[in-house]
């Protein structure tokens, strides 16, 4: 086979061959009309010859190693040969050649080879009938049984071929352009069968059916050409893909999806450290079970990445291979990034879990203090108070009890501060608005507070918001030299926005840094972010955004 490919004509030779075929057909057509052949019929046959010859030449040029192009040109030649019958009896020998060649073309799409045994057997029968048996019947001047038998046999082969096409269309999901082509092939095969059966039956309708069939059979190569053009466009997009990948895009999936014309395309990376597949964002992902939907990109026989795509792309193996080859290097970089993101994602998750566990623990401690030590001290103080009322006039004893009660009061105040520092119970019990009012009332400068909650934040988010305001107002008192401040809490599109603005001196402040860093950590742990604007002499604006469903 290699030999035959290398023996193919050079481009110039192919063009010359095509020109010769078309010129020959034109000459035969002119002569045929002069002989009295119906011009409509001549035109239909010319269309068939031209369609196969031209499409075949184009396919041949695009895929020189593929036999499909030459086969189509041969079909064009067969059509020309059969038209010679208009001028001389000898042309009758080639009468059925174009039909069986067309069946061959259809069944051998797209490689030009017959891939199934059934197709080979069918076509073998077809050739024997259309060439071997036909030569005999021409030689014997068309004995009815033999001639009709061969026509029916070729018709049956065409019908069986149509059945193969239908089966192919049903068992494999195909892209739309391919579906149209397969439909054109199926229609063509059915037309051949119809044509031959009508030929056997005879009758006045035959010429019309024949011309219609010929015209329709010429449609298939045009559809094929359109598909070829589209595939060529797709391949052209690989050039764009290479250029795009050189720009080192953050998101590799989008250019790959564009190059493959598959918007559903997803790029997954194999992360050996996690022994798992992950998306570009580093989040875990699973490969679909359907092997037709997955193309794995390997390096040294270990997977690097996988494209999850429309199974129809399997029918464009060349394109898929070209795209994966172009993407290989970028994918390697992409995998490292995905690995990093997965690490970050894992850290983010564990940080959030640690922070949440800490928060719950502090909340539990606050509760224990409230229900335990604080209640006991209050009860103790109460008993001392009762004792005080019963002591009568013993001044020394009264003084001692009063002193003890004062000590307890101090301890209670300190415990209250400790408990509040552990967990601001007022936030979880009474909500952010009540808690913030207490903060702003105690603030070191006049504060205008507006709270407009359109969402219900989680307790963790409310507590974080509370600490943001608390820390900021403390800073205003310590560093800002401000005369007033505003605290604005509102929700917008799933985000709780907290803004604390003062009219102080602003400017960078190292002392303020650590507190703000702690706040930023607290906010970021919850998936939010904290921004600080503090230009000199223009006050300070702290803006925290927290997730809020």
């Amino acid at each position, binding site marked *: 086979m290699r030999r035959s490919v290398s023996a193919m004509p050079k481009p110039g030779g192919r063009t010359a061959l095509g020109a010769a075929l078309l010129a020959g057909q034109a000459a035969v057509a002119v002569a045929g009309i002069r002989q009295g052949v119906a011009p409509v019929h001549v035109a239909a046959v010319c269309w068939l010859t031209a369609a196969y010859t031209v499409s075949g030449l184009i396919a041949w040029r695009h895929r020189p190693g593929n036999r499909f192009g030459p086969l189509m040109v041969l079909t064009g030649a067969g059509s020309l040969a059969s038209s010679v019958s208009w001028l001389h009896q000898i042309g009758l020998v080639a009468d059925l050649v174009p039909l069986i060649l067309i069946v061959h073309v259809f069944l051998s799409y797209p490689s030009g080879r017959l891939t199934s045994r059934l197709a080979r057997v069918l076509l073998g029968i077809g050739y024997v009938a259309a060439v071997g048996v036909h030569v005999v019947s021409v030689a014997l001047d068309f004995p009815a049984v033999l001639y009709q038998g061969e026509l029916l046999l070729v018709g049956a082969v065409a019908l069986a071929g149509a059945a193969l096409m239908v089966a192919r269309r049903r068992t494999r999901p195909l892209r739309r352009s391919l579906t149209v082509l397969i439909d054109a092939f199926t229609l063509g095969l059915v037309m051949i069968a119809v044509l031959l059966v009508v030929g056997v039956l005879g009758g006045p309708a035959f010429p019309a059916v024949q011309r219609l069939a010929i015209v329709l059979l010429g449609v298939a190569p045009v559809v094929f050409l359109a598909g070829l053009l589209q595939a060529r466009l797709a391949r052209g997009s690989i050039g764009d893909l290479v250029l795009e990948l050189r720009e080192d895009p953050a998101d590799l999936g989008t250019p790959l999806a564009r190059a493959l014309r598959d918007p559903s395309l997803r790029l997954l990376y194999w992360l050996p450290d996690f022994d798992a597949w992950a998306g570009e964002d580093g989040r875990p992902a699973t490969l679909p079970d359907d092997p037709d939907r997955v193309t794995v990109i390997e390096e040294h026989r270990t997977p690097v990445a996988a494209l999850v795509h429309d199974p129809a792309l399997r029918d464009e193996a060349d394109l898929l291979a070209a795209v994966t080859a172009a993407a290989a290097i970028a994918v390697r970089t992409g995998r490292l990034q995905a690995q990093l993101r997965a690490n970050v994602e894992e850290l983010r998750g564990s940080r959030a879990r640690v922070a949440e566990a800490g928060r719950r623990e502090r909340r539990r401690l606050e509760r224990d203090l409230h229900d335990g030590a604080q209640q006991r001290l*209050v009860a103790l103080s*109460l008993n001392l108070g009762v004792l005080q009322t019963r002591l009568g006039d013993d001044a020394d004893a009264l003084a001692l009890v009063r002193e003890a*009660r004062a000590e307890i009061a101090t301890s209670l105040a300190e415990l209250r501060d400790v408990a509040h520092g552990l967990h601001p119970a007022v936030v979880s019990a009474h909500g952010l608005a009540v808690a913030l009012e207490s903060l702003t009332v*105690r603030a070191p400068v006049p504060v205008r507070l507006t709270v407009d909650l359109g969402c219900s934040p989680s307790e963790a988010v409310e507590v974080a918001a509370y600490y943001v305001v608390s820390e900021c107002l403390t800073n205003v008192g310590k560093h800002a030299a401000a005369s007033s401040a505003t605290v604005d809490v509102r929700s917008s599109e799933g985000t709780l926005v907290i803004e604390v603005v003062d009219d102080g001196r602003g400017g960078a402040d190292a002392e303020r840094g650590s507190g703000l860093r702690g706040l930023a950590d607290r906010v970021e742990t919850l998936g939010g972010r904290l921004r600080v604007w503090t230009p000199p002499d223009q006050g300070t604006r702290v803006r925290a955004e927290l997730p809020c469903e």
Partner: protein
Amino acid sequence: MRVAIAEDSVLLREGIARLLADAGFDVTTKCGDADQLRAELEVSLPNVVIMDIRLPPTHTDEGLRAAIDLRAAHPGLAVLVLSQYVEVGLAMQLLADSADGVGYLLKDRISDVPSFVSALRRVAAGGSAIDPTIVSTLLSRRRRDDPLAVLTPREREVLELMASGTSNQGIADRLSVTLRAAEKYVSSIFTKLGIPATRSESRRVLAVLLFLRT
């Protein structure tokens, strides 16, 4: 005078009950949560309810919700709410539109038995008792063009006592002045701050707190 107590700490509940019994109150109901209290009140209504703000099952704001509900359901029923910490915002929620028969005190205040008993009597009689912490926090609040600057130090003291629910007689006793003098201070404060004067001592609590809050 009949008193109901809702407090989940047994130690504290029994302590308060003993203290009140000693002071001559009739403790008719002692319970550990708000639902039980509601059920008991269906049977017999006391003059005043003492309740912890944090009660089972969630230990968040059951006591506060129950206090607000009870005041709406039983007009004339006095409620004294106790808490480990006091918040300005909660005081305003509790008072809503009337300070009649409402108290809101830190638990620490119980140990000063005579003051606590007198606060309870005042609330039961339709007056108010607002924790001094809240009043002093509001008074010390930073303001632009502080309107309180026009008050004399003595008047500030009177304002503080007034806001926590002290009667004119109480103010006179605390400051060791005559009742007439106390009344003069009060009317002078109202004039200076531009608060509409009111005869009711509990209504003026709300007026003063609202003034201080803004």
